[in-house]
């Protein structure tokens, strides 16, 4: 870092900092989500939990293909919405990708894990209405978590904008793709 002896007065420092923070806040405030962003992500999670639970409970080739189909739908919807966001705003937000779409926020990951676990149990017990309820709860948890993250981001964009590293998200996607391939090959 190259330092300079030129030192602004306290008034100049306050003005330049305020100006910079206003630009930052305006950028965060002006970001617009694509239509049905949260709803489509929530719906894809509902579909993924249902297909995942039913597919695992079937324990046959068709069931494993159902699991993979649910993952493909989720990734397709997530990728389409993220690219729509990027095209619309001219901004790439790592936090939106990891925290909202891939559900690494505490609320989304906790509700998803509980809902998916309960849905698998219910599918083994042939309680299909419980599977449906669990899927809806999982999707709703994702939606609430996403809405909450967007509000948190806008109130403190400097802290929440980047989210987890791209490497971690890529590893997350790759591991589920490998799992899907293994499930299909194994069936």
């Amino acid at each position, binding site marked *: 870092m*190259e330092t300079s002896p030129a030192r602004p007065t*306290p008034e100049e420092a*306050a003005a330049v900092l305020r100006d*910079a923070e206003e630009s930052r806040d305006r950028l965060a405030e002006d970001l617009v989500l694509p239509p049905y962003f949260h709803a489509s992500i929530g719906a894809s999670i509902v579909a993924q939990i249902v297909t995942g639970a039913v597919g695992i409970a079937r324990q046959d080739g068709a069931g494993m293909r159902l699991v993979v189909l649910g993952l493909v739908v989720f990734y397709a919807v997530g990728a389409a919405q993220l690219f729509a966001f990027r*095209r619309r705003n001219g901004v790439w937000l790592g936090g939106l990708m990891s925290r909202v779409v891939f559900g690494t926020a505490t609320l989304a990951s906790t509700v998803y894990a509980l809902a998916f676990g309960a849905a698998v149990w219910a599918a083994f017990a042939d309680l299909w209405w419980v599977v449906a309820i669990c899927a809806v709860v999982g999707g709703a948890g994702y939606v609430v978590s996403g809405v909450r993250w967007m509000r948190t981001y806008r109130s403190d964009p400097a802290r929440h904008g980047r989210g987890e590293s791209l490497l971690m998200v890529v590893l997350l996607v790759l591991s589920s793709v490998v799992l899907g391939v293994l499930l299909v090959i194994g069936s």
Partner: protein
Amino acid sequence: MGELDRHLQPPARLKLMTMLATTSEVEFVVLRDGLDVSDSVLSKHVAALSEVGYLRSRKGTRGGRRTTWVSLTGKGRKVLTEHVGALRAIIASVE
């Protein structure tokens, strides 16, 4: 307390870096409009800050047309934090 960085002394550069700190990557046109400067002025700032390793720019596309995407580097983020800390210390010195 961090130190003031001479590369961030022009207010437009501090604004540019602060805007980038809230995102992973921003398109050139969005930055230009947010800073209310011309293409050439922004290009000069981006080139100067890229040269010292504070920013990274790459050619890409948006909606099918070619454009430039700009992001903050780890070094840029650290320098920005220190610069803002130094500014806050100056402000606090009279409070």
